[in-house]
């Protein structure tokens, strides 16, 4: 492998020169090099994302509900993660990360169902020419994303949904919403494929072979819809957070308020658990964000620094905003801000600079505090655990901010360009009107697609089996009625 490595590097290093004069242009040759350091980092990142989900998210949500519904919360998150893991290897991975033929812009096909054709020798590209990963590494990492996203939704209609209906809804939702979204945002050929096709195109054009040139151009465009739109989403702000946030919003509206909402106290039964959950989300999120770099290099570290800063900034911002407006700095406020910061930095973590991340964190923290603390009440919205207020809104802020902070003038990494000098990663000129608008369109599309799609699925399940438990069940609590257990027997 090392040997290949050198060869590969050699070739790549040698390449740019050639690329310049189209006259003597040569086909792009490359080797697929896997570095054990990258595999080690991706493996642990995968584990960290699982840590975010269980116990992280389960506790963050569980601590916020009433004792009588604690287990329902934990079971929902844990069961969703498990069921989706099974779906992922049966057909999910294929729908998200294989060619969809005619539908390729929107969703993948079934060629890789049951992981057909995948073995320890197949590889996937990273964001660097000549650097590849074992396909299983990629499958495992992406699996954890598919596991956590639907689990994020359940906070919006906590303490009132029927477990059976939820399971059915989730299976439909990942199939018709999540996998297509992942495909539209993340499906592309990789740096070496682009370099190869771009070179073929140049050669064909030089040789006046229009057919060949068109074929190459087609290949260059064989990516997901939003990818082709140029949407920037480093670690899944759109696919994961806006996606879950909107679905949650739709869900809490369609299920309606909890019995006693606004009248009885629905205070969190254990902020200790919520703190543990928030902390583990922070810890695990480094796998989520820095793992999305697919390599273990200086950019990985930049992502880590950004994730630290934006998170701390949003936590502190929310805490002080609350201190100022409500008189006291609360732990729940602090950790809510922390999660907001994690959400907001997700799409930007590899594109923004440290100071940009600081500003983004502060902004997102204050904005979400105001939404959750005031706006939400105005709409009498029972988004019980603020899935929209934190993941939806935070995700939108982050996605839009990415279009600004990517600007090198603001310390950003700039717009990646793999084709102008095939075989190398160049930075394209930043144009606000273009690159910011790309983000706007992507966000807009996602809101519509997910909003409408989720509404249809909720309605469907409601008609089929009813979404909500009976009032008495809600009063007694879901733990006893739905799961036959109590969380605590002290």
């Amino acid at each position, binding site marked *: 492998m090392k040997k290949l490595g050198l060869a590969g590097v050699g070739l790549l290093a040698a390449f740019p020169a050639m690329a310049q004069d189209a006259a003597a242009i040569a086909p792009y040759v490359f080797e697929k090099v896997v570095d054990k350091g990258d595999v080690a980092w991706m493996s642990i990142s995968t584990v960290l994302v699982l840590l975010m989900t269980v116990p992280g998210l389960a506790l963050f949500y569980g601590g916020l509900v009433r004792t009588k519904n604690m287990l329902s919360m934990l079971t929902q998150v844990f069961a969703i993660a498990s069921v989706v893991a099974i779906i992922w290897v049966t057909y999910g991975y294929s729908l998200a990360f294989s060619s969809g033929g005619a539908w390729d812009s929107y969703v993948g096909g079934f060629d890789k169902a049951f992981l057909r054709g995948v073995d320890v020798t197949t590889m996937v590209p990273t964001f660097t020419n000549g650097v590849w990963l074992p396909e299983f590494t990629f499958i495992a990492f992406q699996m954890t994303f598919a596991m956590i996203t639907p689990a994020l939704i359940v906070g919006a209609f906590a303490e009132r949904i029927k477990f059976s209906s939820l399971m059915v809804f989730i299976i439909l939702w990942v199939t018709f919403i999540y996998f297509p979204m992942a495909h539209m945002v993340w499906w592309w050929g990789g740096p070496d494929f682009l370099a190869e096709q771009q070179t073929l195109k140049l050669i064909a054009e030089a040789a006046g072979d229009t057919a060949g040139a068109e074929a190459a151009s087609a290949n260059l465009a064989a990516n997901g819809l939003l990818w082709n739109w140029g949407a920037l989403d480093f670690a899944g702000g759109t696919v994961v957070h806006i996606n879950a946030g909107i679905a949650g919003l739709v869900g809490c509206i369609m299920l309606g308020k909890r019995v*006693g909402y606004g009248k*009885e106290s629905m205070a969190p039964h254990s902020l200790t658990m919520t703190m543990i959950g928030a902390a583990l989300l922070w810890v695990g999120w480094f796998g989520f964000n820095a793992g999305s770099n697919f390599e273990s290099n200086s950019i990985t570290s930049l992502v880590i620094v950004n994730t630290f800063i934006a998170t701390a900034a949003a936590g502190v911002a929310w805490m002080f905003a609350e201190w100022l407006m409500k008189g006291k700095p609360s732990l729940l406020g602090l950790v809510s801000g922390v999660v907001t910061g994690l959400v907001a930095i997700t799409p930007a973590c590899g594109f923004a600079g440290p100071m940009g991340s600081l500003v983004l964190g502060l902004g997102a923290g204050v904005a979400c505090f105001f939404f959750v603390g005031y706006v939400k009440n105005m709409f009498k919205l029972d988004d019980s655990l603020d899935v929209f207020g934190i993941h939806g809104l935070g995700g939108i802020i982050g996605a839009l901010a990415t279009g600004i902070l990517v600007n090198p003038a603001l310390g950003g990494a700039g717009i990646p360009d793999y084709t102008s000098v095939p075989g190398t990663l160049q930075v394209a000129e930043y144009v606000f009107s273009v690159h910011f608008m790309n983000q706007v369109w992507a966000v807009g599309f996602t809101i519509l697609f997910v909003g409408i799609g989720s509404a249809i699925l909720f309605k469907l399940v409601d008609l089929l089996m009813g979404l909500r438990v009976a009032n008495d069940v809600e009063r007694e609590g879901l733990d*006893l009625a739905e799961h*036959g257990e*109590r969380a605590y027997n002290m």
Partner: protein
Amino acid sequence: MIIAAIKPYKLDEVREALTTLGVRGMMVTEIKGFGTQSGHTEIYRGAEYAVNFVPKMRLEMVVSDGLAEQVVDTISKTARTGKIGDGKIFVIDVQSALRVRTGETDDDAL
């Protein structure tokens, strides 16, 4: 002294009703209630446990004799759902009452 066992979620309602009636204080305890209302069964792996108590709230308040009847009345009205397990109200005679802070006694203490 009036002692009542009611359904937990009725507590706020009952309290408000009593306050408007002029009851100025009470002691509330979370209890395990046994009665005709049956409990539930819990299953943990192989083991099944029949939990035959139901969580209830126990209200305990001392009121002037004049108020007693209305209080019993108000509680039973507000706490009633008509479903089994609504609870019970008992009245007991109190010999003396005293407010620690001031030393006032009997009716002044309430």
